[in-house]
């Protein structure tokens, strides 16, 4: 047990349950599925006239998705000032850049990310999301282990 959870299980379980309560609250009050990655495409729709970004679904959801993103930032900020301290990652900028590009591209191609497929999708008992989650977890593990084996840390 301990070697699988060196930091304990408490923060993970509590954090996961609070995330679930947030997503549930949005569903209960509005019927919307609060997931993250669409936010990139819907926000681009304010600037790009391309038909893909001007699709109705994006235009109709871009305002609330921006609001959700603001909630994410401020919610994390409240936790940090109340219970934790500010943090700066030591993952190098080029990893954030290359990884970020692939995350943006891949999640939009797949129409979901860790929250869209991983939380709302699994919660909706969607087999599409289950396949997506299994795929990105396996590929993520293989990639991270390879990157580590090449001597890139953390």
């Amino acid at each position, binding site marked *: 047990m301990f070697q699988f959870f060196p930091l304990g299980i408490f923060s993970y379980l509590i954090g996961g349950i609070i995330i679930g309560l947030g997503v549930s609250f949005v569903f209960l009050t509005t019927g919307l599925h609060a997931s993250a990655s669409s936010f990139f495409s819907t926000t681009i729709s304010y600037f790009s006239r391309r038909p893909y970004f001007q699709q109705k679904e994006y235009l109709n959801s871009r305002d609330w998705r921006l609001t959700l993103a603001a909630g994410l930032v401020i919610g994390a900020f409240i936790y940090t000032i109340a219970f934790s301290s500010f943090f700066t990652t030591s993952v190098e900028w080029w990893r954030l850049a290359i990884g970020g*590009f692939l995350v943006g591209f891949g999640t939009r191609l797949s129409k979901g990310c860790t929250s869209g497929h991983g939380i709302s999708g699994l919660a909706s008992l969607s087999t599409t999301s289950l396949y997506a989650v299994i795929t990105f977890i396996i590929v993520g593990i293989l990639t991270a282990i390879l990157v580590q084996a090449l001597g890139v840390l953390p």
Partner: protein
Amino acid sequence: MRVKRLFVFLGGLLFGFGLAASGMTKPEIVLSFLQLKDLGLLLVIGGAALVTGLTINLIPKVMKEPITGGKFKRRERILNKRTIIGAIIFGIGWGVSGQCPGSAVASIGIGNVPILIGIVSMFIGAYVMGRFFS
């Protein structure tokens, strides 16, 4: 509608608070899962999906419609090649950097300034997908 956006904002606050409490706003902790040193991330996704699953599947049985109106619907996506190829590309990016969309955005709130590089890159990736591959 204003009330609807207020509810989305409040739910977002909880979502972001939970992301920070779980440590997922720190790429290092996500990487420690992907390197199989700490399996906590599974508890985070599992806990969140379980709570949300109970809500999505049980609430429509006791309530007719969401509080601000509209309809209760499951999140449906059609499975095709793009779902899986996209998940593979996302998995590579996740494994390289320890970032995913929600945790990266929330990470701004813990003062993690370098994450802005990742977020700008996610926008570029989303743009290239929509511009050239849609």
